[in-house]
């Protein structure tokens, strides 16, 4: 879909047009699902996060001003994923399951993987959680490095270095 048409859909959403919101699900739903799936490795959880993202989008669309809509949407998706991680960590603490306590966010996400995780999913689970998230953000949101750096409030050099390291390691693991 041309950017001009997407812009028209976004304007419709800002006016509260139901049809435009459903169109937005058609445009971004698959990409956002892919992003969540690659981060969680779990289909059901990705379905839930996807639904949560679009419901939140309805609430927040008025706050989108200009700039990259993809960047705005995926920043919101990243926040939802982090909220989920925090919730999961709280839950784990409450259950006091020391044996299964997360060694890191990476391990925590790996725990959720479906049994039939593909090769790429297993390779991604080997990456540091922060690096994996950056690589996924870059791939699915199609944001520029500068946009990612702005959205995460990190120096662009750091972002470049992390993504480079992550993708290089991924190639080795997939080798």
């Amino acid at each position, binding site marked *: 879909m041309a*950017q001009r048409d997407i812009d028209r859909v976004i304007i419709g959403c800002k006016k*509260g047009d*139901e049809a435009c*919101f*459903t169109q937005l*699900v*058609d445009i971004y*739903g*698959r990409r956002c*699902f*892919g*992003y969540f*799936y*690659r981060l969680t490795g779990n*289909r059901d959880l*990705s*379905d839930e996060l*996807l*639904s949560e993202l*679009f*419901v939140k*989008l*309805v*609430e927040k669309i008025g706050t989108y001003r200009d700039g*990259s809509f*993809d960047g705005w949407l995926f920043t919101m998706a990243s926040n939802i994923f982090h909220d989920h991680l925090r919730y999961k960590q709280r839950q784990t603490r409450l259950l006091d399951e020391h044996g299964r306590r997360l060694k890191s966010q990476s391990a925590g996400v790996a725990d959720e993987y479906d049994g039939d995780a*593909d*090769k*790429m999913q297993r390779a991604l689970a080997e990456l540091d959680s922060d690096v994996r998230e950056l*690589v996924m953000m*870059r*791939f699915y949101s*199609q*944001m*520029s*490095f*500068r*946009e990612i750096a702005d959205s995460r409030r990190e120096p*662009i*050099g750091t972002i*470049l270095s992390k*993504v*480079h390291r*992550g*993708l*290089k390691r*991924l*190639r080795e693991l*997939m080798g």
Partner: protein
Amino acid sequence: MNNSANENLRELLAGFMDEAAARQTAEDIENGEKLLGAYSAPQPDERVLAEVKKNVVAAVRRRRTVVFQRRILTAAVAAAVIIVSGLVLMRYGNQQSSHQTRMVAASIPASVWEGADDADVTVLTAEIENIQSELSGAHSDDGGNGSNDIGDLETELIEVNGDMWKG
């Protein structure tokens, strides 16, 4: 739009490293992203997307109701503010006008009242009372000579006025 597609990666990396390293790093990144593209994530079920759309439409309707309720509330608050302001203004205005009346009464020089002859005041008061009773009689008179009575009263008023200024 400044997205990954129109970003000059090599130029960007050249700001952090020498040209050869920038070229190598850009190649690593491009190849890594190609690999990710080759192993695409599974697609969501169409049923899931339909469910997401249903949730989104419900959220839009919920939001619309909330916005409508908020507008009603704002209008009610605005109306209440206007009514209270009106009441306050009316009360304040009444207080001010009674204050002004007192001011007018006080502004008549005391010498006018003190210097007036008692006999003149008595005559004038009697004339006024007479005119008042004739006026009320003319108003209550249902007969056809009401206009003549009013004409007579006018003449009398002119005479009283003239007498007063003559002293």
